[in-house]
């Protein structure tokens, strides 16, 4: 029995290209010789590195610890020796290198001791803590740290949605995972439901994956879960979290908010699988399934350790065929061009597509926009993409923001249907990152201004205090002078003494005012100290002023 499917705006149906890679079972990659593990594999702060060159590590050992609230741990994928901790090419649209831990495998694959988590006896929400060390991050593409999503706070979660839509063309890793490991996925989902305190589980799967839907239904029945598998029409971008939420519940996630605000939490099926392994087997996130497809000899889904060089994955899929001109990371609608195949597999990479001009023809030259409105019809966010384009192109960033630029999910539907072949999304990405950078600069300038003004105030206050002290001293001296008429020598000594005491006092106060007494070698703590002091000082300052 299928659940109700609600309508969503926009969307399209590009050629699927799923058959290339979804017929073969998941291939488990053999141990590689060398792993390159980036410390930034998730949204938020990069992990703080815990090892250095020369260290030996074990499989599952934490080599990067979460830094801040929104961050995730990074683990050694196998046992071996750390060769280097240095910037290496990573899978990022910028093509810039990022800090990685390079590990030479010793071949033994010795693991640290792994402890399953007794989740049934944990109250809802308590699982987040032990999970923080497991390094789970959403595998759908946003790579948001999972332990944070499992302890949302605020609105009570009613519904857990499991995202198996996999709407991007070419990608089939979730399809294969659902077909082959549905029970584990649903067990993971049940742990999520328990932790979130949700009442029901909804699984959304596009209708081009009937076997996956069947397998998931079977798993639900076998585990007797309060879960319903809903087959949704194949229509990109049904796999967007907000889109799938609306498809399955009819609810629209408010702009600038996340689905938890309306009592819904969305996880990718692969994340549920990773959670199952983390909780039931105690194994941190060490591997993932990735589709390697396109113009390769044997398109495959490969389960590989994180840190495996992408070139190794391509080799496992039979290698590039003649005429490959590049590789796409992610799907063809939202992915990006990979600069260097030496870059490693990370938590966010769900697909590697070898491209050639036949599969991915060069875009024809762009023509002027004729406001034909095809983009607006295709836009799943009901935006007016041509207006956004107009303002982004003119670098009229305020206007672009006013036309709700930040509601754009960069799904690429508008660019796909544009008869003028304008790279619309590129303009939006440009405008967004300009606005974000400008906001950041503005914030930094505001902080600098406040600190400067506070410094001026402080200097003024010091000056006044000094003046007051000197005035007091002068009057004291006057009094003392009257007494000292008989004993000038004693008075002179007393004056010198007073002056020295005053100097010492003043010096002490100056130092205190400069707030340099709490010196620790740790920079972070110093910043915190400054912040705390400033907060403590500003009301006082206001009071004085």
């Amino acid at each position: 029995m299928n659940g109700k499917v609600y309508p969503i705006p926009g969307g399209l149906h590009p050629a699927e290209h799923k058959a290339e890679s979804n017929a073969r079972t998941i291939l488990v990659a053999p141990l590689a010789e060398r792993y390159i593990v980036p410390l930034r594999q998730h949204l938020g702060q990069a992990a703080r590195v815990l090892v250095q060159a020369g260290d030996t590590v074990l499989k599952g050992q934490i080599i990067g610890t979460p830094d801040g609230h929104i961050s995730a741990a990074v683990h050694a994928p196998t046992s071996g020796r750390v060769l280097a901790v240095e910037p290496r090419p990573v899978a990022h649209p910028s093509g810039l290198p990022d800090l990685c831990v390079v590990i030479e495998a010793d071949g033994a694959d010795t693991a640290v001791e792994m402890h399953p988590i007794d989740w049934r006896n944990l109250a809802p929400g308590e699982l987040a803590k032990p999970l923080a060390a497991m390094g789970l991050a959403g595998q759908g593409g946003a790579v948001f740290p999972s332990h944070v999503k499992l302890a949302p706070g605020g609105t009570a979660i009613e519904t857990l949605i499991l995202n198996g839509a996999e709407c991007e063309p070419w990608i089939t890793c979730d399809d294969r995972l659902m077909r082959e490991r549905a029970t584990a996925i649903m067990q993971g989902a049940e742990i999520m439901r328990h932790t979130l305190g949700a009442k029901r589980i909804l699984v959304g799967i596009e209708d081009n994956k009937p076997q996956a839907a069947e397998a998931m239904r079977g798993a639900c029945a076998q585990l007797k879960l309060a879960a319903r598998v809903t087959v949704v029409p194949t229509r990109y971008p049904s796999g967007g979290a907000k889109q799938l939420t609306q498809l399955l519940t009819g609810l629209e996630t408010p702009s600038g908010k996340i689905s938890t605000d309306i009592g819904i939490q969305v996880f990718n099926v692969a994340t549920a699988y990773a959670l199952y392994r983390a909780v039931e087997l105690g194994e941190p996130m060490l591997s993932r399934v990735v589709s390697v497809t396109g113009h390769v000899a044997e398109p495959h889904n490969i389960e590989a350790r994180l840190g495996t060089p992408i070139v190794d994955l391509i080799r496992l899929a039979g290698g590039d065929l003649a005429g490959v001109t590049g590789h796409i990371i992610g799907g063809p609608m939202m992915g990006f061009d990979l600069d260097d195949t030496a870059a490693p597999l990370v938590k966010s990479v769900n697909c590697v597509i070898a491209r050639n001009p036949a599969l991915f023809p060069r875009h024809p030259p762009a023509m002027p926009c004729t406001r034909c409105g095809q983009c607006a019809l295709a836009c799943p966010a009901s935006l007016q993409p041509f207006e956004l384009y107009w303002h982004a192109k003119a670098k009229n960033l305020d206007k672009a923001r006013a036309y709700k630029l930040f509601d754009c999910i960069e799904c690429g539907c508008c660019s796909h249907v544009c008869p003028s072949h304008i790279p619309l999304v590129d303009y939006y990405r440009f405008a967004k990152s300009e606005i974000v950078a400008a906001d950041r600069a503005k914030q930094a300038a505001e902080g600098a201004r406040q600190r400067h003004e506070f410094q001026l105030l402080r200097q003024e206050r010091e000056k006044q205090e000094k003046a007051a002290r000197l005035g007091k001293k002068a009057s004291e001296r006057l009094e003392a002078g009257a007494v000292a008429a008989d004993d000038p020598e004693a008075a002179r000594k007393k004056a010198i003494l007073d002056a020295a005491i005053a100097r010492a006092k003043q010096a002490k106060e100056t130092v205190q005012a400069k707030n340099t007494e709490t010196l620790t070698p740790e920079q972070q703590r110093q910043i915190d100290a400054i912040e705390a002091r400033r907060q403590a000082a500003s009301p006082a300052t206001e009071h004085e002023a």
Partner: protein
Amino acid sequence: MIGSPFVLKEHNSVRFTMIKVMAALIPGTLAHAWFFGPGIWLSLIWCGLLGIGFEAMILVVRGRPLQAALTDGSVLLTAWLLALSVPTLAPWWLYMTGMFFAVVVAKHLYGGLGQNLFNPAMVGYGALIISFPVYMTQWAAPAPLANYLPNLSDAFDLMFIGGNITPDAYTSATVLDSLKTATRGGHTVMDAFSQPIHGLIAGKGMELVAMMYLFGGLFLIANRLITWHIPAAFLAAIALTAGVLWQIDPAHHADPLFHLLAGGAMLGAFFIATDPVTACTTPRGKLIFGGLAGFLTVIIRTYGGYPDGVAFSVLILNSAAPLIDAFSQPRVFGHAKGGRAGR
């Protein structure tokens, strides 16, 4: 660097869009040729040549590359629409003036494809009807009425040489002309409708051409090249406005069905008011745009100095389109309600 998406929709380009719109014009043009003689083909070709010539010229003046702009098909569509709006068999220079205003003034002085504020074909038409009102009313008479239906070589003579056939021999007033003359002269609508030019509902021949435009327009909607909003609002507003006037005073006002099938109403509804560059783009804006244009069309036909009002009402609404768009932004996903873009 070009980012994702890496795949684009196939068979999708400005040129292909223009070709499909022109294909939708074929039924109407065939009907036109059937009733008013093969001269329409000659004026079509002449307008097309003029359009390409003017476009090439202005592109060179503006220092823009020729090939992309000349082959996008947009100038041919403009030429086609102008040829259908100007009386067939008008002298060659009349088309030339019209195309000059359409391509050079209305399109390229505003920045070329996608930048023009006003519909180029209608600017050309407007310039002609203001400058040469006599020529612009000399419409060829429909075949069943004409004493004489010029064949291709006659048409060539008439257009390019001047010929020795007096216009009276092959032209007649349109239904809208005769309606205007009748109501101005204090006569009733029935006087106008009893003229031989009046067919079943509107102009003899022209009413069927209009039906063919409607047919072509439905093809455009079916192919998602235009949305239903503007034509529906435009035609509904014509019917409503004409209906109200007709109810008030049936003796001096034509019925709504007449207004829908007379003059340029159908061509305007599907092919002119829907020009995406110059029309509104938001769903609500399109309804407002089409509605106001339809309303103005009937008002101009009834109270204005010109027999037909499609061109002027569309041009007036063109100038208001950006404002209407700004105030009719649709509701964006996840936002409470639409309304004005901006803070």
